């Protein structure tokens, strides 16, 4: 046989380039935009819900952590421990502030001392109605250690701390009905002038519910014995661990067990963690929406295959292999759900942004949530498209051509 033009050559099905696959896969979508929008919507709602749920809780957590960061995690509080045996209540020594300030790493030390007194709006109010407000003596450095500030008025200092002047925590001020400095409150058996009201102190909620007088005034006017009941200490971040180990022994070398050391930032940290744990219920709802969306995509793909039997037959006659028909429809399904996923991520991020803006939170959408959401849509697209694609590929070309 001569090597003429019709001599059988090896037959090899050509591969489609990725670009051709994308082109062929998107051709069905381009011709039916409305259907694409509607069937991608289901996926979009599912993904948007999941991204928003994760985003909102992440934003809330970020806000708490931001606050925590501002307040610092390097503050420790020392207080008298519980009495192991009946008898004398343990007390912190009078010079505890001085002792702690000599511990290496400690930067600021402040203290309060509980006074067994009540504070009232006037002497006409019965003594029993304390409103849950404690009266405490406070050292001048206390506010600095707590990183607090006064919302109005001034803080205690060496001068006003010797006179019947008082600074109220913001909860205490609200309960007493004090709105501005200059007003007077009744403590023990005399009026004290309110010189300042504190801003909220998330790290020291008990101070928020206290009326604070100067150390000297407490001693001279209210019979304070000078033993601090809470000692607040702030150190460098890397020294916290060492200071914590030394604190009790420094305050009370003879009986360190009588000193209880706590870390108020731990409670806030725990709160941040619970805020960060997104609602499983909402996440489950998003998952169901996603599943329904996936069923919608599968349905659309089956209809698409039925409608386009002639196109399938034509492509087979143009030389498309079964595999190439299969990949065309899987690609179409992937694009359909991918489009929904993309829209869902954008919607979810926008919903999170709206929530964050309304609550003055930082806007956080975790990357893992976006990646996981998008990955889920691609998985759904593959699964939803596989069966219709296999059906399309199995279609006999002659039957497909007869369909029209």
């Amino acid at each position, binding site marked *: 046989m001569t090597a003429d033009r019709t001599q059988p050559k090896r037959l090899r*099905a*050509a591969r489609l380039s990725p670009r*051709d696959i994308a082109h062929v896969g998107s051709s069905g979508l381009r011709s039916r935009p409305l259907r694409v929008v509607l069937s991608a919507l289901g996926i979009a709602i599912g993904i948007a819900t999941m991204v928003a749920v994760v985003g909102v809780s992440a934003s809330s957590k970020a806000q708490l952590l931001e606050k925590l960061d501002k307040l610092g995690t390097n503050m420790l509080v020392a207080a008298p421990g519980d009495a192991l045996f009946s008898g004398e209540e343990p007390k912190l020594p009078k010079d505890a502030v001085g002792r702690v300030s000599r511990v290496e790493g400690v930067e600021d030390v402040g203290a309060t001392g509980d006074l067994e007194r009540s504070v009232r709006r006037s002497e006409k109010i019965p003594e029993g109605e304390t409103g849950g407000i404690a009266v405490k003596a406070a050292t001048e450095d206390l506010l600095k250690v707590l990183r607090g500030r006064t919302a109005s008025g001034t803080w205690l200092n060496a001068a006003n701390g010797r006179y019947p002047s008082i600074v109220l925590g913001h909860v205490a001020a609200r309960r007493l009905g004090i709105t501005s400095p200059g007003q007077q409150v009744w403590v023990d058996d005399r009026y004290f002038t309110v010189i300042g009201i504190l801003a909220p102190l998330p790290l020291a909620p008990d101070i928020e519910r206290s009326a604070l007088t100067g150390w000297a005034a407490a001693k001279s006017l209210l019979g304070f014995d000078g033993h601090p009941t809470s000692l607040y200490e702030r150190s460098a971040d890397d020294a916290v661990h060492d200071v914590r180990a030394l604190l009790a022994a420094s305050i009370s070398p003879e009986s360190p067990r009588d000193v209880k050391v706590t870390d108020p930032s731990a409670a806030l940290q725990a709160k941040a963690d619970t805020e960060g744990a997104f609602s499983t219920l909402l996440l489950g709802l998003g998952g169901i929406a996603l599943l329904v969306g996936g069923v919608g995509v599968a349905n659309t793909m089956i209809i698409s295959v039925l409608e386009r039997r002639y196109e399938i037959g034509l492509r*087979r*006659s*143009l030389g498309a292999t079964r595999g190439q028909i299969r990949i065309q429809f899987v690609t179409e399904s992937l694009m359909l759900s991918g489009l929904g996923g993309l829209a869902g991520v954008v919607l979810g991020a926008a919903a999170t942004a709206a929530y964050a803006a309304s609550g003055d939170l930082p806007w956080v959408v975790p990357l893992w949530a976006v990646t996981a959401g998008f990955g889920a849509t691609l998985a759904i697209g593959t699964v939803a498209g596989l069966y219709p694609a296999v059906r399309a590929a199995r279609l006999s070309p002659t039957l497909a*051509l007869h369909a029209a």
Partner: protein
Amino acid sequence: MSLRRAERTYEGAGPGDGVEPVPAGGHPRPGPGPRPVVRLTGVTKEYPGGVAALRGVDLDVGEGELLAIVGPSGSGKSTLLHIVGTLDRPTAGTVEIAGHDVAALSDRKLSALRASRIGFVFQAFHLVPGVSARDNVAEGLLYSGLPRAVRRARAAEALDRVGLADRMRHRPHELSGGQKQRVAIARAVVGEPDLLLADEPTGALDSASGEAVLELLHGLNSEGATIAVITHDGQIADRLPRQVRIRDGQVVHDGGRAVQDVPAQGAVAR
């Protein structure tokens, strides 16, 4: 095409009275002539339920031929088109296309055969809506493995060949029926197939457009293309150099007009 085949004309064996089937294997095969593009031997196609669409069909199509496969509906000509086009496999008999035994080919190889050797033209055109004429034609090369730029360049050439060089950017809905069919023909020939199968190519066209399409097919044939036109229309069939008449799944007539009647086509047939 040869004089020898013209002598085998069964005069008067029209679709009406052609009850006498051509004996199977009764044809002398063309000897040293051009290698056949299509060779069907004893091809039978039975559908589940015992309906036989084709019963022992022998058919040779040589390179450069222009023939009509003609028969009334239900005669089996569509089944024959599908089998020659390798879209379907026979239940018995052998099919050779461009030297390949179809029965021995996998789906992938069969697809490659269609992509490189066979072009289809359909009655209803089947152009992709919303896509330019040029891109529709380029779609005919999509499964050939050629890069996109080459596909588009060849599509432009093919459109030029069918006389639509000025309609490259037009979309199907902007074209007349005849123009659409010419785009479809361009799509079928853009890959320079060994065989062009046209299924009722003028069926959806008015007579003037149909005339133009037939002229185009004649022209392509004179340039060397091997073309089989499947039709139920005896008039169209009679204008082609060779007619294969099908009835009840059998070839009842295989021959051409007297060569002296159609000197032009006779010359082209080499």
